[in-house]
């Protein structure tokens, strides 16, 4: 259907293409040059010419196997008669994760050396070598670039070119090395592609992050995880086959095995070339556990920061923070005395009882974790049935905001020691017989509930976070909170001497608790501010009166004598009355602002942009307090609204109060974890600008101005 002529014509056209319309004309994203490791070469010598690419930050060029998309760099040398060249020596690549796609390539700087052999009968003198190279360079968009080069080399006595030699040596050092004793096999078993490797370089504790880069596409699914197991001298890596290997490995599929290796505590990257025997296994290692030792495309670490972190990174981070959070809960004044008492109890056991103590410690841990998982499950069930959403929706309600403010105030007073709660609950914990297994489990369960007053502030965070996450992430977060809470106790049951390291209960705990009161008050102030946005000065006044009445009631109740109890009750009634007055205030201000905004949809954005209008999109949710602050603050500001109107900015609102896959996907595509999220599309059709989560009048004015200027945002 296409003749060779057309192909050639197409090639010519392609090469004469201007850079993409979105890029500045004539500006190359790669500053390339041809370098040599020798300034002067001897007849018969093999030296290297290298294409050096200095790549614009954020952009990347491609390896010999570019991965799911892209194009490998090509080098064409015009060598003098009799001179010969070998294949490019490719430095090991980095994986670049683009959502469901993974590419292999380079960012920053890279040199691609080509071995060149001078004929033995070469005549001394100066030779000029010309060359040409083509490459694809991509960021969000891709640009095919090319350049021509010229380099002058003396033939005579061999002499190095210091700069070129440094670049080429570095490149050759990072290319896959051939290790003599390495043996490997590649085969398919039950739909999994299994790479087995034997070699002395495989040392279990000193090697990590194994990742296989095949030299050609189609050998494996570039985007699939590559979990591995490693034992002394042996490793096994399981991944998903590509179209070339799906029905079995019938020829050698060579590639580069990258990993990190530790020498004296420093982890350095090492890359070994493998030519695995087809349809063979060289060891009997068992399949790696799902997720264990997994190295996704983004996880093969190392300096340079080439790979975009895969989604799992944030997840691990969250799990780790949950663990730390759980550990901190141990220091809470409502948890620590109970636990340390029980810990002392366990530690004092001797002889055969020690084993029993360890068992009890583990059972206690199981109790804590089970309770957290149950709480997590409850949250998920509520979420699944929409209960959570309607709860979240209430956050827009002044009643909830005011209630939370009062709660924060109460917790603060409690922390300051104005009054005590929860002592009776702690008593319940004490009554459970801690010697029995069931008793230990219940102690674990109770520890969570006893800790509830202190947990509340942390749990609110975890709950909010869990709401935005898939079920398994939420459960893991809850489990890690539990592990953190149980960990010190379990450790003490195994290592009694650890008790000496733990701080003793004492007055310091009171002080710690008192310090925590101030974050509570600060949160209260923030909620009062939100309520002020919703209901105006009257709401603030009534809420402050509520708080005043609450503190009065508590003060009165604490004084001995029946009369004071009555006074306290009066105070409580006053507090309730003031609270009701707060709640009953109109919230017209909230509703009125929706008028100028249309409902968002990707289609509507496209239509409005086709009209040449700048478009502002407010991704919001009723349960997102920051969103409400922006909505009633910067977005309601008369100057901002005037700027919108004067510049004919189309206003769209995407309401994420209820789960919406289109909005979720759009947010994810911008890497936004959730709302608030703001986009300003320029009038000229360029890329939208992402605005910060907390908006101000000046941010909005500037964003509108840059959206209407023909340049678009200066990105």
């Amino acid at each position, binding site marked *: *259907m296409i003749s*060779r002529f057309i*192909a*050639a014509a*197409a*090639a010519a*056209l*392609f090469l004469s*293409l201007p850079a*993409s319309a979105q890029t500045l004309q004539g500006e190359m994203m790669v500053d390339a040059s041809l370098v040599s490791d020798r300034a002067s070469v001897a007849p018969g010598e093999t030296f290297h010419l290298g294409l050096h690419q200095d790549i614009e930050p954020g952009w990347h060029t491609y390896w010999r196997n*570019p991965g*799911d*998309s*892209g*194009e490998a760099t*090509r080098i*064409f040398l015009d060598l003098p008669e009799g001179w010969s060249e070998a294949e490019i020596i490719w430095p090991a690549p980095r994986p*670049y994760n*683009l*959502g*469901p796609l993974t*590419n292999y390539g380079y960012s920053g700087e890279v040199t691609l050396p080509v071995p060149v052999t001078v004929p033995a009968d070469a005549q001394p003198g100066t030779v000029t070598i010309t060359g040409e190279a083509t490459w*694809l360079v*991509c960021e*969000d*968009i*891709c640009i095919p670039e090319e350049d021509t080069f010229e380099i002058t080399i003396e033939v005579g006595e061999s002499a190095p070119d210091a700069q070129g030699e440094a670049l080429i040596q570095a490149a050759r050092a990072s290319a896959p090395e051939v290790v003599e004793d390495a043996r490997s096999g590649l085969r398919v078993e039950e739909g999994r592609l299994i790479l087995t490797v034997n070699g002395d370089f495989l040392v279990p504790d000193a090697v990590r992050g194994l990742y296989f880069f095949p030299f050609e596409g189609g050998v494996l699914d570039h*985007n699939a995880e590559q979990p591995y197991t490693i034992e002394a001298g042996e490793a096994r890596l399981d991944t998903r086959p590509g*179209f070339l290997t*799906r029905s079995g490995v019938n020829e050698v599929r060579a590639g580069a095995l990258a990993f990190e290796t530790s020498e004296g505590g420093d982890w350095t990257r090492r890359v070994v070339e493998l030519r695995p025997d087809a349809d063979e296994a060289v060891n009997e290692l068992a399949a790696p556990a799902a997720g264990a030792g997994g190295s996704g495309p983004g996880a093969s670490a190392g300096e340079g920061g080439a790979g975009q972190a*895969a*989604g799992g990174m*944030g*997840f691990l981070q969250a799990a780790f923070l*949950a663990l730390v*959070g759980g*550990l*901190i809960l141990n*220091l809470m004044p409502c948890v620590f005395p109970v636990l340390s008492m029980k810990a002392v109890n366990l530690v004092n056991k001797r002889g055969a009882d020690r084993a029993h103590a360890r068992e009890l410690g583990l059972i206690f841990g199981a109790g804590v974790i089970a309770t957290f998982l149950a709480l997590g499950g409850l949250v998920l069930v509520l979420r699944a049935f929409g209960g959570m959403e309607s709860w979240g929706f209430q956050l827009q309600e002044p009643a909830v905001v005011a209630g939370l403010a009062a709660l924060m105030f109460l917790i603060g007073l409690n922390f300051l020691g104005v009054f005590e709660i929860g002592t009776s609950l702690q008593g319940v914990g004490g009554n459970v017989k801690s010697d029995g297994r069931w008793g230990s489990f219940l102690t674990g369960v109770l520890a969570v509930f006893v800790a509830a007053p202190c947990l509340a502030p942390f749990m609110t*965070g*975890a709950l*909010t*976070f869990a709401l935005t996450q898939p079920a398994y*992430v939420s459960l893991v977060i809850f489990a890690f909170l539990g592990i953190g809470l149980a960990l010190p106790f379990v450790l003490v049951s195994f290592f009694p001497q650890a008790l000496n390291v733990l*701080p*003793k209960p004492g007055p310091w705990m009171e002080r710690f608790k008192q310090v925590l009161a101030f974050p509570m008050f600060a949160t209260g102030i923030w909620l009062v501010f939100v309520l002020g946005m919703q209901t105006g000065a009257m709401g603030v006044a009534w809420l402050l009166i509520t708080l005043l009445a609450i503190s009065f009631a508590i003060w009165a109740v604490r004084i001995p004598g029946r009369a004071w109890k009555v006074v306290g009750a009066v105070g409580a009634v006053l507090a309730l009355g003031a609270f009701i007055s707060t709640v009953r205030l109109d919230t017209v201000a909230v509703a009125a602002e929706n008028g100028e905004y249309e409902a968002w949809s*990707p289609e509507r954005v*496209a*239509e409005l942009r086709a009209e040449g209008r700048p478009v502002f999109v407010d991704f919001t949710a009723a349960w997102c307090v920051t969103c409400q602050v922006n909505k009633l603050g910067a977005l309601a500001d008369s100057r901002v609204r005037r700027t919108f109107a004067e510049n004919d900015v189309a206003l769209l609102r995407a309401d994420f109060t209820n789960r919406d*896959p289109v909005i979720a*996907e*759009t947010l*994810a*595509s*911008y*890497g936004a*974890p*959730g709302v608030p999220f703001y986009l300003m*599309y320029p009038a000229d059709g360029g890329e*939208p600008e992402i605005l910060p989560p907390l908006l101000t009048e000046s941010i909005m004015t500037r964003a509108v101005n840059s959206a209407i200027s023909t340049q678009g945002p200066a990105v």
Partner: protein
Amino acid sequence: MKTQTLSISRRALMTASALVAAAAIGAAALAGNARAQEPTGEPPIPGDAAPGFTATTATGDTVSLSDFEGQTVVLEWTNHDCPFVVRHYDSGYIPGLQADAAENDVVWLQVISSIPGTQGHVSGERAIELNDERGSAPAHVLIDETSDVGRAYHAATTPHMYVIDGEGVLRYAGGIDDQPRPREGDPAPVEHFADALAQVQAGEDVSVPETQPYGCSVKYTEHS
């Protein structure tokens, strides 16, 4: 005396570190930056049933793969600003294949899976305009803004080509040919896709049912 001083400083240290960690947790919970890993299913394999889909076309209609039962269907992932796509349109290669397809009762579906805000994402009207300008006449243009169709097919590049036979079986998945950037002196490109389409039309087995596609990445995400 000495031990007491020591223990006080240890307590102070613990208090301080606890506060720092508490702040970190609060910040992490607020930022909530753990993104769910993409659930990447298995890619569709030639010989298996092609994944079904329903999508909105540039004219605002809704089409499903099942609408074309009995007809050969071509899926062409495209992005009008991608240089690899531009090359095959400017040379007339893809428009020519589309015209041949229309004559032979093959349903050619152009698919645009670029998410809003990324290269290649266009409105329906703009997609039609672009095709008019380029002399391109596919049966339909699918505006796959949610990338659902792209993800179902594991479309990786623009162009990325698929051939589905009248029984709904995927017969070819891969590149339009084997030459990302042909140069003078390179061998003539092997037209894997055109060959596969001709073989499906002739009722033959497809000799090379899968190849490595080349081109720009399908714009599933904003950041690469």
